[in-house]
């Protein structure tokens, strides 16, 4: 039989119509339409379709409709149809449509039964339903031969997008219901409230049955029935009822989540019937009231419900895929570009009509742009609302009384950001509940109201969204935090005293601080605050914490409005424009070269700038980009953008600062990203392209904020201010405009030698010095400053004599200027250079601090390596003590107590040790060390001590430790600048295991691993 295309088309159209009629009737049936009429319409639809498809020789469709008809038949004499059947038939209709469209289908003719009949039976006493249910069973028996009853009601071929929509809608409904339940709990129920919930649950039920998620449907149905009498205004919801409703919501949430993840949740299957039972029993024991009595409350809450009405306003909205919005944004960008070009063109035109049109185009485009930006925005209330549940559940679990108030829920935020802050916010709020708010008893005792309050406030500020989470709980105790931080080795005693309140509270964000359970119990806050910070910072935000002990804690989160559009500073370097994200920009400095007091200084070749007394390393963007700096640096002005990369700031020298702009970030391909200099690119208003600078990457390339520098900077920040420790330096002049200094403690003697007395030993300049020969090293040459620059008529040369490893060395300098006693901080070198320890930032000028030992090492790489340790171990195995074998990687982490009174050494030694991963705690003198060790005998693996110290010197410390039973096992290492035979001997006598000369990192590190290795073997 041949069928023309025309006929086929006609058949299709007709079939679709038939199906549509059947579908409509089914849906009307679902909404309680008269059964008989609806049934007839459905039956007719299937029957006719069967006939027609038979005529058209479409066997698949024919058998499909035949089956449907068969299943439908038994209902002919009934007065209702169970939901599961309705959704089954709806699916059947969908399948028929697919067949018509020549799609392959895999239709499952089984009808979910169990959950349904059980639920229906328990929930209502409606006899008809029961009847149908039993009928369903017989029906099932009738079709048994053909059908496999699958217990799991998930429909495998439901398309993903439809499912997504379903789950999204479920989430929304559950949110709204939770919110209203909270109102019920607070006895705020009005007719509207109750109706809203009822309606929501009803649609949830409908949707769930439609998609064949009977479990959800059943629970929703039970909720609906339970709420029946409340809705009629005759009963008041009881607490048990609300609790049961909450549980039901929770159960559905889990199930919906499982649906999303395409897994099945066993637990929900078990608890669902229990919840249903609870709901029903609760509904039976309802207090009878007349809702009219609550009219007063109604008017009270009217205002609130108005607000909520607005929040819930979803009637006029549609769902749009985010991709579509993104595409629109891109097109929008193009349109703006075209607009700009038209505007430019029109400015040269004198055609009035054209001018008018272009003006209109301009304003319309701006409007569209503004509106487009809004499409991605969502009120923050969307996620804040969920916290009512969190707080409610937690306060219940913790037996606390906590109120949550929300302010500024209407503040809008980009959707992706909203998702990103959800978890951190939940974490903070949970913390507030758990550790912040006290139990009612405690609160009473401390004179607060029994109920604690958590207030979440969000608002716009300076182009950012600020979210403040405030609780009136017990707050954070600075001392407890600090104590824990010291125990964890995050701080040392001296650092702790100088810590600002802000820094102290922010300790809880430190990684590792939170993991110990003890901290959670004692100090309050705990687990995972570092994760909170990381997550917030990932989206370009920041988080800080303020707290008043006893009064409460405020956590403040600042996040950008959107990720897609970033405010940035446009700078120019050569011909090209670059964008710097404003978030990374601290300030702009413009240096006029004619001004005397503010200028760029050069420290061994690298530029620095003194910004309000702090040395700021400068990075030239031209150099970073590998270009010649054609600009003559002597004339004109220099623009410096001061940028913030993690913990350190640096100045970026750019040719020109142009403007700020909101830029749309476009990703770069991986090749360009891997250069580390750019984080993206953007198209500017005039259509040109600007690369977005990756501030972190640039700082990395410039070597700013490397590990050593950071420890030192942080040490310096923590130590420097409070200690007010004077360090003495010898100031010398070299062949360099900058002054140089040597720590006075290193200097053995100052000598003035006649030039004529210098002799040559091989290639080495030496001078006879007493009985020995003193090698002379030129500091200027070693540091690369060139020859000494002394007046030739001078006959003598100033020499600084330094003792290293029992040998004397002469450092030749241009002139010895002075000694300087200062508390100025030592900041690390900007560029690591042998022989330079760092910069001394005095109020007057910059002084470069020389590391004489390193210089000697550089000049005599072989002779200076002799270990000074006089112990048997060290000398018996010279290979291991060879510093050329780097002991850089710590094989195991050692907890070291460093006893050292000099600020300078403290930093240097500590940074050396920490560099390889050891943990170092620092104390000032022997006495402090002894106290600390007695308190925590087991905390340290090794003690490294100076000899010369106030209060208790190293010898006495060693003796005391050896006499103490608990501490006698501790390995002791002496580290002194006085390393002659006599003092070494005295050190070993006092009980030190080893005696080393200061500042020879490789030897020190070797010794550390030897001493602790030995200890491990013993224990």
């Amino acid at each position, binding site marked *: 039989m041949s069928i023309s295309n025309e006929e086929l088309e006609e058949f299709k159209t007709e079939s679709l119509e038939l199906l549509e009629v059947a579908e409509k009737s089914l849906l009307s049936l679902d909404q309680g339409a008269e059964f008989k009429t609806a049934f007839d319409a459905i039956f007719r639809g299937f029957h006719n379709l069967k006939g027609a498809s038979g005529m058209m020789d479409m066997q698949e469709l024919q058998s499909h409709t035949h089956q449907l008809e068969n299943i439908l038949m038994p209902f002919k004499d009934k007065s209702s149809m169970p939901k599961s059947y309705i959704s089954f038939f709806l699916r059947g209709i969908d399948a028929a449509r697919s067949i018509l469209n020549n799609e392959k289908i895999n239709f499952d003719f089984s009808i979910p039964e169990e959950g349904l009949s059980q639920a229906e039976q328990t929930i209502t006493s409606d006899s008809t339903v029961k009847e149908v249910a039993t009928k369903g069973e017989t029906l099932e028996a009738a079709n048994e031969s053909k059908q496999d009853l699958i217990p799991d009601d998930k429909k495998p071929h439901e398309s993903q997008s439809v499912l997504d929509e379903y789950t999204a809608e479920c989430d929304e409904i559950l949110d709204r219901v939770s919110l209203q339940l909270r109102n019920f709990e607070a006895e705020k129920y009005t007719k509207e409230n109750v109706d809203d919930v009822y309606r929501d649950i009803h649609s949830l039920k409908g949707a769930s049955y439609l998609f064949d998620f009977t479990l959800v449907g059943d629970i929703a149905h039970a909720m609906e029935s339970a709420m029946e009498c409340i809705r009629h205004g005759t009963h008041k919801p009881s607490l048990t009822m609300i609790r049961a409703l909450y549980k039901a919501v929770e159960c559905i949430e889990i199930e919906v989540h499982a649906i999303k993840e395409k897994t099945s949740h066993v637990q929900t299957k078990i608890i669902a019937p229990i919840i249903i039972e609870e709901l029903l029993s609760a509904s039976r024991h309802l207090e009878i009231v007349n809702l009219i009595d609550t009219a007063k409350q109604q008017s009270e809450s009217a205002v609130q419900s108005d607000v909520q009405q607005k929040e819930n306003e979803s009637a006029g909205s549609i769902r749009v895929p985010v991709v579509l919005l993104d595409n629109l944004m891109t097109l929008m960008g193009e349109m703006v570009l075209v607009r700009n070009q038209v505007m430019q063109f029109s400015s040269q035109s004198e055609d009035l009509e054209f001018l008018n049109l272009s003006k209109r185009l301009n304003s319309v485009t701006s409007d569209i742009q503004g509106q487009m930006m809004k499409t991605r925005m969502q009120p923050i209330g969307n996620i804040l609302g969920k916290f009512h549940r969190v707080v409610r559940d937690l306060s219940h679990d913790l037996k606390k009384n906590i109120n949550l108030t929300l302010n500024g829920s209407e503040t809008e935020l980009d959707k992706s950001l909203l998702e990103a802050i959800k978890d951190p916010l939940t974490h903070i709020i949970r913390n507030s509940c758990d550790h912040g708010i006290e139990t009612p008893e405690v609160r009473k005792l401390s004179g607060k109201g029994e109920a604690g309050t958590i207030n979440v406030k969000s608002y716009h500020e300076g182009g950012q969204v600020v979210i403040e989470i405030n609780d009136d709980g017990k707050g954070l105790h600075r001392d407890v935090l600090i104590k824990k931080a010291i125990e964890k080795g995050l701080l040392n005693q001296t650092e702790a005293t100088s810590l600002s309140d802000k820094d102290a509270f922010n300790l809880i964000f430190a990684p590792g601080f939170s993991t110990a359970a003890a901290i959670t119990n004692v100090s309050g806050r705990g687990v995972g605050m570092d994760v909170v910070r990381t997550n917030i910072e990932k989206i370009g935000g920041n988080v800080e914490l303020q707290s008043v002990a006893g009064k409460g804690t405020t956590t403040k989160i600042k996040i950008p409005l959107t990720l897609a559009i970033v405010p940035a500073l446009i700078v120019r370097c050569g011909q090209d424009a670059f964008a710097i994200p404003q978030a990374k920009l601290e300030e702009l400095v413009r240096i006029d070269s004619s001004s005397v007091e503010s200028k760029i200084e050069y420290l061994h070749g690298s530029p620095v700038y003194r910004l309000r007394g702090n040395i700021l390393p400068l990075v030239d963007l031209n150099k970073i980009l590998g*270009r010649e700096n054609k600009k003559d640096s002597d004339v004109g002005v220099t623009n410096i953008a001061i940028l913030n990369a993690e913990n350190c700031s640096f100045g970026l020298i750019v040719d020109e600062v142009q403007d700020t702009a909101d830029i749309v*970030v476009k990703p*770069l391909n*991986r*090749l360009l990203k891997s250069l580390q200099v750019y984080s*993206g690119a953007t198209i500017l208003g005039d259509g*040109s392209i600007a690369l977005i600078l990756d501030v972190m*990457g640039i700082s990395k390339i410039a070597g700013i904020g490397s590990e050593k520098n950071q420890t030192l900077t942080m040490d310096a920040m923590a130590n420097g201010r409070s200690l007010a420790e004077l360090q003495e330096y010898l100031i010398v002049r070299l062949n360099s405009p900058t002054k140089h200094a040597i720590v006075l403690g290193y200097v053995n003697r100052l000598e003035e030698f006649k030039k004529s007395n210098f002799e040559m030993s091989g290639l080495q300049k030496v001078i006879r010095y007493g009985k020995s020969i003193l090698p002379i090293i030129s500091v200027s040459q070693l540091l690369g400053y060139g020859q000494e620059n002394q007046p030739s008529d001078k006959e003598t040369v100033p020499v600084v004599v330094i003792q290293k490893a029992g040998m004397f060395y002469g450092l030749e300098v241009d002139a010895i200027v002075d000694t300087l006693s200062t508390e100025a901080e030592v900041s690390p070198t900007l560029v690591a250079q042998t022989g330079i320890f760092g910069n001394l930032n005095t109020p007057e000028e910059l002084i470069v601090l020389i590391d004489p030992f390193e210089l000697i090492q550089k000049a005599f790489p072989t002779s200076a390596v002799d270990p000074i340790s006089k112990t048997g171990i060290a000398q018996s195995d010279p290979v291991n003590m060879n510093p050329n074998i780097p002991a850089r990687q710590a094989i195991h982490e050692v907890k070291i107590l460093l006893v050292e009174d000099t600020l300078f050494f403290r930093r240097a030694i500590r940074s050396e040790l920490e560099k390889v991963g050891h943990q170092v705690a620092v104390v000032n003198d022997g006495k402090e060390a002894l106290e600390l060790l007695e308190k925590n005998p087991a905390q340290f693996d090794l003690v490294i001590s100076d000899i010369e110290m106030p209060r208790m010197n190293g010898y006495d410390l060693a003796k005391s430790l050896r006499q103490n039973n608990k501490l006698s096992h501790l390995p002791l290492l002496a580290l002194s600048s006085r390393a002659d035979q006599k003092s070494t001997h005295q050190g070993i006598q006092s009980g030190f295991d080893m005696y080393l000369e200061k500042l020879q990192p490789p030897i020190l590190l070797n010794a550390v691993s030897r001493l602790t290795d030995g200890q491990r073997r013993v224990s």
Partner: protein
Amino acid sequence: MSPNETGAARSENQLLTTFYVGDDFFGIEVMKVQEVTGAPKVIPVPLAPGFVSGLINLRGQLATAVGLRELFGISNAHESEKMTVVCRMDGNLVSLVVDEIGDVVEVDGRGFELPPDTMPVVVKRFVKGIYKLNGTLLSVLDLDKVSQELSPQLDVNNSHNQIK
């Protein structure tokens, strides 16, 4: 486009967009080419490898311009008005900067051959094979290889990029 596009032996006819780099004649499957544009403004990217000429604003979209002369190591003898062939690779737009655009050529799958061993390695890397045409040979560019060149293994420590 033939479903068997990567296979060496193709029997079906294919349409190729052709262009010249230096004196050599190249082709790309028509379906892989988004568009051909005249000399656009290329914004150079400092520090980028030589074959990356820079970035192009293609009506609001960013395209990475890859100079095929540089990629193939052909000396930059004459600086003429360049044309670009825009393709989408791995979700990114890539503009191949070429010297001259040729016609769209229909080739017979039977004329396909693997590139000869004598072809310079720098070029051969990016060539899938050649077609023998009347009077000339047409090398088919392997866009996947070009794409690989633009996606080196990323450093792990590059994940700090804040702006995505």
